[in-house]
């Protein structure tokens, strides 16, 4: 049985790597997408359990992606963690997100949050 999927949408490869390692440590399969438009295409075919979403992305913003995710019924169980360096924008989007993390985000914190999510099954 495969692990649940965590989609990491983050244009900075190093951060994406750290997030991926933290989620893998919590037994998630991870997939990294660095472009907004690309993420939109990918979301058309997959329904990830967790989306770690950066807001400042090339070609399509994280904000637009979040709106799209929230608009579709099939993402009802998808947990969205905003991971951004823009605290002001993050606060504005907080109602639509399951969790807001302002960079810098600790590896252990993300790992522990992801573990809690795996254990509880749904709520964070």
């Amino acid at each position, binding site marked *: 049985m495969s692990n649940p999927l965590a989609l990491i949408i983050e244009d*900075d490869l190093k951060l994406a790597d*750290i997030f991926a390692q933290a989620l893998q440590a919590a037994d998630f399969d991870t997939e990294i997408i660095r472009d907004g438009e690309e993420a939109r295409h990918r979301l058309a075919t997959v329904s990830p359990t967790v989306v770690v979403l950066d807001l400042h992305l090339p070609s399509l913003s994280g904000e637009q992606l979040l709106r799209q995710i929230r608009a579709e019924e099939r993402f009802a169980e998808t947990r969205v963690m905003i991971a951004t360096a823009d*605290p002001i924008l993050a606060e504005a989007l907080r109602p639509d997100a399951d969790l807001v993390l302002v960079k810098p985000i*600790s*590896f252990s*914190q993300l790992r522990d949050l992801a573990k809690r999510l795996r254990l509880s099954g749904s709520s964070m």
Partner: protein
Amino acid sequence: MKNASEQMQILQILYEIAMSIGSSLDLNQMLKASLSTLLKKLNCSAGGIHLIKEARGRVSFEQVYSIPRNTGRNETYQLALQNLPPILAKKELVNFFQRLPLSGQSDQGNYFHILELPDLGVLIVVKMGQDLDPLIVKSLHPLQKKLAEACKACLTKEALARSERRFRQVVSSISDHVYMTEFTGEGEQINRYIAPNAETLTGYPLEKFRNDWSFWPTTVIHPDDQALAAVQVERFAQGQNSEIEYRLVRANGNIIWVRDSGRVEKDEDQQRWTVYGVVSDITERKQVEQTLKESEKKFRTLAETIGSAIFIYSDQQCLYANPAAEEMTGYSRMELLKMDFWKLVHPDFQEMIKESDLISLHSKKSSSRYEIKFLQKDDQERWGELATRGIDFEGQSAELVTVFDVTKRKQAEEALSMAYQKAVEASRMKTDLLANVSHDLRTPLNAIFGYTEMMQEGVYGPLSGRQQEAIKKIIGSTGQLLNFVNNLLDQAQIDSGQVVLKTLPFAPADLVEGVTSIMGLLARTKGLKLISHIDPALPPTILGDPYWLRQILANLVSNAIKFTEKGQVHINLARLNEVYWSFEVSDTGPGIPPDVQAFIFEPYQQEDTFTSRGSGGSGLGLSIVKHLTELMGGKIDLNSEVGKGTTLTVALLLFSEEETNEE
């Protein structure tokens, strides 16, 4: 019956009487004398003088004198007088006297002769032993006439004397000084009269003037005005009226102003003339005039030198414009006087002025002010502060318009406004720049944190003790750098006044989570425990500004970690009561001495802030934490004891979404 020669003799006597008394001044004396002489010469025993009075068509008479004194006033006579019928003709009077019995005179018949002095209302009644011959009576008529004339002349003299007396009374009762001077064709000057008022007017005794006629022109008239007075005398000498004003030096040295007005009346032969002069004290009027003149001069000088343009308009016609008006408008005074006022006002402001009734040019409204643009002769636009007021100008209703050039002030205001806009813009750009910089710094910082932490966690294999130490130093330094980056943006936002607090729902758990993420790493690295506790009584979601709350909490935690070397830092979120919730951060650090507590919330100096950052990062500084807390309507408390640690509590008003919805 007396013969004709005797009668002529009587006539002659009467005539002589009339002539002799004609020059007498007193009418009474004259009448009495004439009666007495008449009685004596005619050998009569009694007679009287009666005044005829006529009032409302009724003739009555009154005896004013009689000879002998008692006879005429006997009872019968008085009774008869009282019983006279209302209207009495003169003929009846004669009858009356003829019927009148006279006591002690029975040997003689009752013959009366009455001499009437026409126009005077005087009857001279003579009782005679016999009737006069009609011829004599007839010849008495011219005598009567003469006597009447003599009496009239006498009366006129009396009237003149009375008039003279009255004149003197009038002269002495008025304050003006009166004089009378006679001039002859040959140029001779005779001073006939000088009124006693000269004394009051000048303070010199009257004798001074009466003894020495040159005293007035040479001593009393002010030396500077003597030449002018001499010209007046010259005019009088030529028979011309003259009126001049000059100064007098009073005996006490005071100077008064007088008006000397002389009218010339020429004699019939035109060879002599008299000047009737009146000298009036006009000092008071002169003083008023002088005051007015000075005041007028003062205001004219003011108007001519003041920097504001002053115009006076009446019926749209400019009556006055001052030099500043010329300077301000570029038009000459002559041009301004001919010009329409509206030509000076910028078209954009004409309607406004007309609508606001600012220049009604008729009303006496109190002053109104407006800022307007006006046009100079070369069409340059200037700003002016316009004020108007209704006034009386030279007897006509007019409008006083003043314009103060405020172009420079306006330009300064505009420059200031632009500078302010630029400053605001610059400040905003600085904040934006800092926001970008801090955003761009957070991402690589996150990578450093992430990889270092993974190494620390052993993701990349076990580390030696020295490697662990190095990792701790990297994490500590990165923490400082992170604080610095965070504070850079916060500080800029606070400094530029751009902190706008929002009211958003947030979970207290998220607030703690956000802070403990990196702070936990920093605390662990320092060997400290970072413990957090959330009161279950606190609603799961409350309202507030999560960003700035997190900044406050992060700074309190950061400070606590910084100063604590051993033990723990405790974050406690609690519901204090129905109204307040709080978060407190307590540590097991060294505590803050009371003298430091006294100023711990005081604003830090910039240098100090940098220094403290350099030496470990003090966060925003407690003054800014306090400022933000108070901005949120909360309060901050410090509880610290040396050796026992420090607790900082931020208490805030509790608004939860649930409660808000319920309402």
